[in-house]
């Protein structure tokens, strides 16, 4: 890999051990993916919940936090993905003081590095969306796929360590989605049944992700003639990334790199149809009508302010079943707005617990499930029902309205 003078200085340790580690880490990853050089980034976004970090990960970052300030501060604006513990509400969930302490230690370390604790996976809706052609180093697959596809920004999936490295060096290895050749379509899908509400979008994204099945596959999609809302395409991308490890898609006539099929090289690909049968097959993997529900979860991605309003409107004047808990996860900035606008109060009157700065699957899902006796989980997120099977849950999928009605009745309606 070609390094400039500043990058060589970082690698040699002239700018401290944190940047030396970061550059070495980036060199290892860059070599594996044949990066020729580094590319400056305008932002970094780090996924780092304490369940994933463990004591080892927290201690690793704490070592950097103890360095002199010039050696430890990140060099570009750097923000965080959801946390694992909402420090204003963890005991009621069955989370332990040890979990909260690990979270507190990590937050303190991040703050010493100059990282802004935004604690959100919807930064593209709440903080500062990247712009077309913007090179960024984002974590959270939902953030990356939205930023690449909808905004036309350029990011690989940057796991927590690599996002941290990018924050410390202000750059990332130039490979994968930073290069034009990896942004060309490799699979072409024709949608026969355009999605309507959020869960439909998630299911369609899941089907395409499952079919694409690789980080290096780029789907181009035809058959969607009306621009979706930000929330709809958020669920679409998050599910696609979850089922397929897919970091980029194009929708002809909708996303900025695909004004037409030819622009992304899709005209040379055979079209694969996605019909109602494909969508039904995916839904059939999850629980059905009449099944009891222990917990209903609205998360993954965190709810936007518009989703908070939608959910509050559906819940208004109703009450959940005594045996069914309801969890709502949103960003701290959205939580504050929702508090001011009364949405939180409406959700709490329904019996929901509204969490800020966390996302259900990132907050010790196995442990809180065991602590609360939650096994049968219902959500309108196609992403979260894909993740939680490995955590011991029996997940089911339904629309937002059906989730609320099911929470009210205590079983899937």
């Amino acid at each position, binding site marked *: 890999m070609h390094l400039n003078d500043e990058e060589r200085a970082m690698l040699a340790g002239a700018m401290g051990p944190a940047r030396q580690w970061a550059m070495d*880490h980036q060199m*290892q*990853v860059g*070599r*594996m*993916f044949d990066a020729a050089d580094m590319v400056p980034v305008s932002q970094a976004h780090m*996924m*780092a*919940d304490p369940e*994933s*970090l*463990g*004591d*080892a*990960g927290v201690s*690793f970052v704490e070592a950097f936090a103890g360095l002199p300030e010039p050696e430890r501060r990140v060099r570009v604006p750097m923000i965080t993905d959801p946390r694992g513990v909402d420090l204003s509400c963890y005991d009621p969930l069955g989370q332990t003081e040890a979990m909260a302490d690990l979270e507190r230690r990590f937050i303190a370390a991040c703050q010493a590095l100059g990282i802004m604790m935004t604690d959100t996976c919807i930064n593209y809706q709440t903080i500062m969306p990247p712009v077309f052609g913007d090179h960024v180093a984002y*974590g*959270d*697959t939902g953030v990356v796929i939205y930023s690449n596809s909808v905004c036309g920004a350029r990011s*690989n*999936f*940057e*796991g*927590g*360590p*690599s996002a941290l490295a990018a924050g410390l060096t202000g750059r990332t290895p130039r490979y*994968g989605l930073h290069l034009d050749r990896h942004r060309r379509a490799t699979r072409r899908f024709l949608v026969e049944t355009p999605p309507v509400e959020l869960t439909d979008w998630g299911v369609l994204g899941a089907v395409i992700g499952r079919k694409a*099945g*690789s*980080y*290096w596959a780029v789907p181009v999609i035809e058959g969607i003639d009306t621009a979706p809302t930000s929330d709809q395409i958020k669920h679409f991308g998050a599910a696609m*990334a*979850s*089922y*397929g*490890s897919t970091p980029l898609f194009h929708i002809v006539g909708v996303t900025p790199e695909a004004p037409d099929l030819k622009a992304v090289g899709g005209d040379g690909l055979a079209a694969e149809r996605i019909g109602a049968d494909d969508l039904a097959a995916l839904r059939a993997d999850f629980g059905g009508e009449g099944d009891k529900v222990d917990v209903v979860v609205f998360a993954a991605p965190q709810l936007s302010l518009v989703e908070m309003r939608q959910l509050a409107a559906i819940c208004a004047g109703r009450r959940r079943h005594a045996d069914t808990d309801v969890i709502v996860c949103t960003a701290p900035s959205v939580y504050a707005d929702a508090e001011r606008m009364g949405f939180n109060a409406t959700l709490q009157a329904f019996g929901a617990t509204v969490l800020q700065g966390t996302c259900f*699957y*990132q907050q010790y899902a*196995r442990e809180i499930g065991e602590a609360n006796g939650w096994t049968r989980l219902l959500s309108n997120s196609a992403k979260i029902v*894909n*993740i939680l*099977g*490995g*955590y*011991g849950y029996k997940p089911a999928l339904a629309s937002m309205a059906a989730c609320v009605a099911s929470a009210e009745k205590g079983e899937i309606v």
Partner: protein
Amino acid sequence: MPRELKCHPGIGPTVAGEALTAADNFSARYDLDRIKGIFSRPQHALAGQSYKDKILVLNTAKGGVASAWMLHEMKARGIAPKAILFNAANTILAQGAALADMAMCDRFEDGDVTTLIPTGARVTVYPAEGRVVIED
């Protein structure tokens, strides 16, 4: 007679161990009970099997970014695979291998690695050289 497989140069140290192979994908968050050290996702081809100290041989990575921290955390507790071999790694698993100093390779010249290395085979992984040796 040992058999050598060529692959793209990878990450991590030279290691030797016993292969655990499946034509399935991998995510530390989606698929594992990291406390018990087993594959926990019921639908996974290796469900119920221990991955501790194995050379995992799988198709590709899937899902989210958590695996990048999780490989490091698993190795720190001593309940981790020795290496992971993929047909195609994604960026997250490579980043996790770099932090954890875990051996990882992909892109095998002879085809589908999940058909080339059977479960139980003794293998040595040389990431820097881009080669894997299957012992007799």
